[in-house]
């Protein structure tokens, strides 16, 4: 089969007066690790729930593997979801949780047991099969939820903020594990996240959402380097938004700026004074008040700069990226 | 889902709502002692008129409201500190302390009221104790007075007061009181300005849960109040069972319902609000 695994056409969803998803068109390629990124209330979770079938669209349609999903209830969709809260059934053991989906297909007996064992092996929880969810740690619960959602080999795995409930240290390791699993299984993952770092580091493709619309789709590198709008430039990473000749706007990343005590030999150079320094370990971020009244952010790995110091900012001719709006 | 809604809806419609229409129809009829059932249907408001003109019935209405109000207040004054103490007790001990409040509710209502009969009788244990200890040489009889009715209502309905109060007090964030103290409020001022206003939903729910059934109470005035205490629930009972006047008893029921419609609606709104907050 060819063509995108998911095709979304003019999809819309309103809750009362609020438009959560506003005529979205989107294709998701087979085998992608696709991230829906946006702030809270941007409609990303609603979009995910429309894919799963928990919400009924007010307009448009969703095709999964070429099949129109309109009117198909959640339990008949070839899609599984990992919930943000994990939604593990508290009255069932880990094994019963994982087996739940297979048993709904009428499965049972040795074959189900074998597949449950395999799934638990895959997430390194074979020794925990008999436990109840309440007896597991946060990370273990997350892996049970993953195993449960994967056991039916869905065409599409939906992940709602998959790492949000984990503490920071565990999150790093789990990121890699999810990426590894996705590559191994060759499934399409669609995940929702508000954490741009998470989206950047995991996704093969990401879509930035704002106010119910998708404002940019692309590979993380492309979106970072070539943001389409001021919103994207500001939402993903830090950016200085400069006015270019001809009334156009340009996004300039702080790390594209050279900070120096003497005037640099670059096409663009401005003098200013350091007003704030935020030390971030590998680099420091300086807020510089330029003599012409503008304020800009510049990154430097040189720790020698002090607040109040007179400095020069310089950047190359192609350092900035022109914005559409 | 439609079936899930329909089953209770139809059941309650037939067994709860429809009967009130019948009560209203009967209340507009006349007493006919010789027929079975003893009712002659009609459209006369004279039963209602009687309830609001006859001194005896008027007195019964006022007595019911007064006794219910005073008892509710007494139950609040006793129940609030109890609920407060349980909410402030060590978390591990709270379930037991709460269970001790609820336990009497699970025993028979009738038997709890009965328990006071032996205590309040002229030669009952209370008077025996008073005479023996010399506190009161010649105590009167409490049984058969309004005092006994108040006592019985507070006793019987105390759990209904404590439970909602505890529910709101237990949720109260202790750091709010610490913040108040930090800003210079003495404990009593903190109580008046923080605890009391925040426990208001519990106070309202508790008072309604005591007041509403107390107004129409029958067993307590019948067993503890004697012939002297005329409460409207007892009037209804006597009109129905003793005098066999179904229309008049029905009119009493309709009036009681109208009288309590406000408090019942208030209680219902509070319940709905409370549940919505939790979802």
């Amino acid at each position, binding site marked *: 089969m060819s063509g995108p695994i998911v095709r979304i056409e003019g999809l819309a969803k309103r809750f009362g007066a609020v438009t959560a998803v506003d005529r979205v068109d989107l294709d998701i390629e087979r085998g992608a690790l696709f991230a829906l990124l946006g702030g809270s209330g941007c409609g990303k979770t609603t979009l995910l729930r429309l894919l*799963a079938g928990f919400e009924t669209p007010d307009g448009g349609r969703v095709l999964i593997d070429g099949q129109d999903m309109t009117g198909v209830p*959640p*339990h008949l969709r070839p*899609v*599984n979801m990992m*919930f943000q809260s994990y939604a*593990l*059934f508290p*009255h069932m053991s880990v094994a019963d949780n994982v087996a*739940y989906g297979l048993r*709904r297909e009428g499965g049972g007996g040795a074959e189900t047991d074998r597949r449950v064992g395999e799934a638990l092996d895959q997430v390194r929880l074979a020794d925990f099969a008999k436990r109840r969810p309440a007896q597991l740690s946060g990370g273990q619960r997350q892996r049970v939820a993953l195993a449960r959602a994967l056991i039916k080999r869905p065409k599409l795995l939906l992940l709602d903020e998959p790492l949000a409930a984990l503490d920071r240290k565990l999150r790093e390791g789990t990121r890699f594990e999810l990426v590894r699993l996705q590559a191994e299984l060759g499934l399409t993952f669609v995940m929702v996240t508000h954490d741009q770092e998470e989206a950047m580091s995991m996704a093969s493709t990401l879509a930035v959402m704002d106010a119910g619309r998708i404002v940019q789709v692309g590979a993380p590198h492309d979106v970072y380097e070539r943001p389409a709008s001021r919103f994207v430039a500001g939402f993903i990473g830090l950016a200085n938004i400069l006015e270019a000749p001809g009334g156009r706007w340009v996004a300039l990343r702080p790390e594209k700026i050279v900070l120096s005590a003497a005037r640099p030999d670059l096409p663009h150079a401005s003098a200013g004074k350091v007003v704030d320094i935020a030390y971030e370990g590998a680099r420091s971020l300086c807020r510089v008040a330029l003599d012409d009244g503008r304020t800009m952010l510049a990154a430097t790995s040189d720790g020698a700069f002090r607040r109040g110091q007179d400095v020069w900012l310089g950047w190359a001719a192609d350092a900035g990226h022109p914005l559409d709006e | *889902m439609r079936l899930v*809604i329909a089953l*209770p809806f139809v*059941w*309650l419609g*037939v*067994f*709860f*709502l429809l*009967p*009130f229409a*019948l*009560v209203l129809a*009967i209340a507009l009829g006349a007493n006919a002692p010789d027929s079975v059932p003893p009712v002659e249907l009609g459209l006369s408001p004279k039963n209602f008129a009687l309830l609001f003109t006859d001194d005896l019935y008027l007195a019964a209405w006022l007595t019911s409201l007064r006794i219910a109000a005073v008892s509710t207040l007494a139950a609040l004054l*006793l*129940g609030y*500190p*109890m609920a*407060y*103490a349980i909410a402030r007790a060590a978390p591990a001990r709270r*379930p037991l302390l709460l269970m*001790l409040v609820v*336990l*009497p509710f*699970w*025993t*028979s209502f009738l*038997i*709890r009221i*009965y328990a*006071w*009969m*032996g205590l309040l009788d002229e030669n009952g244990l209370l008077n025996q104790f008073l005479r023996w200890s010399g506190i009161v040489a010649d105590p009167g009889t409490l049984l058969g007075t309004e005092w006994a009715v108040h006592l019985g209502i507070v006793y019987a309905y105390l759990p209904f007061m404590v439970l909602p109060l505890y529910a709101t007090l237990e949720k109260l964030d202790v750091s709010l009181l610490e913040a108040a103290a930090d800003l210079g409020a003495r*404990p*009593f001022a903190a109580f008046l300005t923080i605890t009391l206003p925040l426990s208001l939903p519990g106070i309202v729910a508790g008072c309604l849960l005591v007041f509403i*059934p107390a107004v*129409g*109470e*029958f067993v307590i005035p*019948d*067993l503890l109040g004697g012939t002297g205490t005329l409460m409207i629930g007892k009037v*209804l*009972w006597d009109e129905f069972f003793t005098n066999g006047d179904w229309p008049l008893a*029905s009119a009493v029921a309709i009036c*009681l319902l109208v009288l309590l419609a406000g408090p*019942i609606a208030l*209680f219902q709104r509070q*319940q709905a609000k409370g*549940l919505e907050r939790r979802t």
Partner: protein
Amino acid sequence: MRRARFAFTMLGFGYAFLYLPLGLVMAYSFNDSRLVTVWGGFSTRWWSALLANEAMLQAAWLSLRIALASATAAAVIGLAAGYALARARSFPGRGLFGGLVIAPMVMPEVVMGISMLLLFVGAERLLGGPDRGFLTIALAHTTFSVAFVAIVVQARLADFDRSLEEAAMDLGATPWVTFRTVTLPLIAPAVASGWLLAFTLSLDDLILTQFVAGAQSQTLPMRVYSSVRLGVDPQINVLATIVVVVAAAALVLSGWLTRRSA
């Protein structure tokens, strides 16, 4: 902490107030004297008398059967009502429905009693039945108890994580299978404690029963009432003792169920 000390003193006083009368009744169930206010030595004669009291035992048996039937019916209807209230956010007549479910909880019993009797009298005239007795009492008790089960179920469902049900459907469970395998097992303790509440309420009810019972049916509270009206009766002390002990056991059970459901 002076305020808290006052509160704890009141708590102690409250417990004394609640338990002293019951304690005395229980103690006097072992009183040898016929006079209920005079202690005449320890005896179990009233226990034997009660256990040989055929009318009382028959009434208790009738009450138990009614309680069993009405609590079970109320659990089913109350489960449906609580589920509808918690899950169906809007449907025509939802306001009326919410009112109907909760109103019997606070409705004065004399009002409910007379209205239900009139319904049964009307049904008898129009449909020729049912005869007043077991069935009418059980119907009345069910109607009255639905509210209590519904409230408990609704409260439990309000705390319920909806994503559990969504997860089940996502894994291929139809709505009915979802209810059977996920929702019901998780709210079962609430339903059970609602059933227990309905059972107790039915066992205890006097007023509603008095209205809708026919001439032949005498439930336990009706027997107790007619005996108590004439004054204090040592056999009732014995019955009270049994009731308190059974209630304590039931409460421990229900507390255990609620803790398990939390």
